[in-house]
């Protein structure tokens, strides 16, 4: 599968500058500075098992090693985060943004460039398949993939998006994420792949073709899902037999006894990144926290508690293979997937609109029947 980040580097595009740019701007010192410090740092927590994993793997050990107090803050909608930065009182010092959102924050000058001086060079180099950016440090990688009712398709399960679209061969209703979520839902990429587009040839997305494909699957759609828990739940409730879902949600459901099948094939790797919000009073502590959480051992500890893949590929050296198998960036899984092109999604076209907005506007037209 195509390595999107590599393409970005080759094209020298604007968004994060990639690692090469970061290196030239901020040459990493041979020996990383000590992370010891004072004061506090306000960090996005995420809640639930995600927040718990962060607390165990990052917050508590960080406090112990550095003496800097971590103040965990619950989730806020990105719109509110944006508003808080604009108001000059950012809600967090360090927060996590969906990979597709970070560029808009960057564009609107709401982020601080990361001081990689605190990072170990080995950690920075090991970030794969998503590289560290000037303003962004990848936090977790997850997959939006094909999930299905394993009890229904015991032999011959759907393996491609075309299979998901094919309700003759694979009977039952479907659910995909609502197109209003644009890049987050992967629904447009899925539609194009279902229509036969190679993952390497997806971008730039062909909107007409995508909506034509969506029109074909629409009659079998039970509903467009909006939150991550919905798709697995609809499979468990036997309301749908196949659809798109996030790997973390599916694995969590299966750990509790659900029988949800999935394939990494044609899965989309998506990621969230750490960012330091402009206006923070604890910028140094924030960079130290990011350097700490970038370490392979810490990320390995993190994935023991939740099935989000570690951006630092060296973390796999510390993860048992049973566990690694479930992670979307494990070598086997990685081969079958591609990284979603957030750059494309944030590209602003001639009419002043980013592709994210274009997708939503077209989706609204399509769902209203006026497209």
């Amino acid at each position, binding site marked *: 599968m195509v390595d999107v980040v590599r393409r970005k580097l080759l094209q020298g595009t604007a968004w994060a500058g990639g690692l090469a740019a970061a290196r030239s701007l901020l040459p990493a010192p041979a020996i990383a500075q000590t992370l010891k410090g004072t004061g506090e740092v306000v960090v996005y927590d995420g809640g639930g098992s995600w927040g718990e994993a962060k607390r165990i793997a990052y917050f508590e050990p960080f406090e112990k090693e550095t003496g800097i107090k971590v103040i965990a803050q619950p989730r806020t909608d*990105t719109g509110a985060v944006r508003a808080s930065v604009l108001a000059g009182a950012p809600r967090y010092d360090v927060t996590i943004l969906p990979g597709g959102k970070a560029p808009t924050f960057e564009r609107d000058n709401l982020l601080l460039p990361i001081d990689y001086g605190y990072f170990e060079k080995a950690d920075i180099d090991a970030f794969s398949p998503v590289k560290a950016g000037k303003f962004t440090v990848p936090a977790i990688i997850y997959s939006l993939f094909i999930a299905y009712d394993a009890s229904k398709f015991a032999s011959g399960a759907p393996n491609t998006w075309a299979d998901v679209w094919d309700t003759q061969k694979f009977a039952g209703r479907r659910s995909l994420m609502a197109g209003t979520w644009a890049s987050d839902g992967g629904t447009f990429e899925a539609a194009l792949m279902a229509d036969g587009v190679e993952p390497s040839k997806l971008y730039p997305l062909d909107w007409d073709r995508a909506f034509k494909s969506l029109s074909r699957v*629409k009659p079998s759609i039970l509903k467009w899902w909006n939150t991550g828990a919905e798709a697995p739940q609809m499979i468990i409730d*036997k309301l749908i037999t196949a659809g798109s879902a996030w790997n973390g949600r599916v694995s969590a459901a299966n750990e509790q006894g659900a029988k949800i099948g999935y394939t990494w094939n044609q899965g989309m790797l998506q990621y969230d990144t750490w960012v330091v919000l402009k206006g923070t009073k604890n910028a140094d502590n924030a960079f130290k926290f990011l350097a700490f959480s970038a370490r392979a051992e810490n990320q390995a500890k993190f994935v023991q508690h939740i099935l989000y893949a570690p951006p630092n590929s060296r973390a796999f050296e510390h993860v048992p293979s049973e566990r690694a198998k479930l992670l979307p960036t494990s070598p086997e899984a990685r081969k079958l997937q591609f990284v979603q092109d957030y750059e494309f999604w944030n590209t602003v076209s001639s009419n002043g609109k980013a592709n994210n907005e274009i997708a939503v506007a077209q989706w*609204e037209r399509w769902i209203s029947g006026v497209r």
Partner: protein
Amino acid sequence: MPNRRDALGREHLLPVLLLLPIVILFSVGYVVPLAQLVLKSLQHDGAWSLKSYSEIGSSPAFVWIVLRTLSLAATVTIVCLLIAYPLAYAISKCPPRPAAFLLLIVTLPYLTSVLIRTYAWIVLLSPNGPINQLLLYLGLISEPLQLVFDSVGVYVGMVQVQLPLMVFPLYAVLARVNPSLAKAAQSLGSPPTDAFLRVTLPASMPGVISGCTLVFLSSLGFYITPELLGGPDSYLIAQGISLRVLILGNFDEAAAQSSVLMLMVIGVFLIFRQRIAEELDIARITMFLWPASPHPVFPRNGRYWSD
């Protein structure tokens, strides 16, 4: 105008002073943000512009979504009215204690969060949920009905949420409608149904109007229930606004759409404002002071008339 002078007189100073905190709270917490919203909608990239409006105005999708929202709100309102009127009528005929109890039951759904109620409906209405199971067991259907993720689910969910808003104004009015009116009409030659249609129903019209207005207006802004219970075609204006704020960060357009929604709300409200003000007052008394209210509108027995 001999009362003009009076209205500004000293005896009116106290009520004005007492009202001051709420007026300040209202302006700071409500009027100012809404004004900002409207101002925001008139800007684009920091400069004055009607671009947001021209954008949504020229979008056939937006017009369609508005129409859809209006028709959903209207349908929910009508269904609510059809269910709430007999309910409120029956409660108004009950003695005070059972009536208070029934009103409490009507209010109960309001005490749980919309989200929880909505999920409960998903469970109840799903193909292997209790309702379908019962119908299957009774042999009334041969395979599960598609009740959830369909317009049926949206209507059921929204009607349940909105029902109290309809029942309370209706009850407040019906409890005040003199029961002798229907008797008088019958003694004058109207059969019971005719008496109801010619006299009781028109006499309860204020409650019908305010109940419908309240339900209609609050339905316009709904999106959690339609989003969770609705089918693939369900898409309303509030969903569009929320995604512009939460996902796209396109505040200008969100502000413009919100302003359009607000304008519709204000429009409806202005048309019926007097009725609503009257009935809200009654409903408030009913909800909070009844049945122990010393208020003359609501004597202890919960009825205005005593013969």
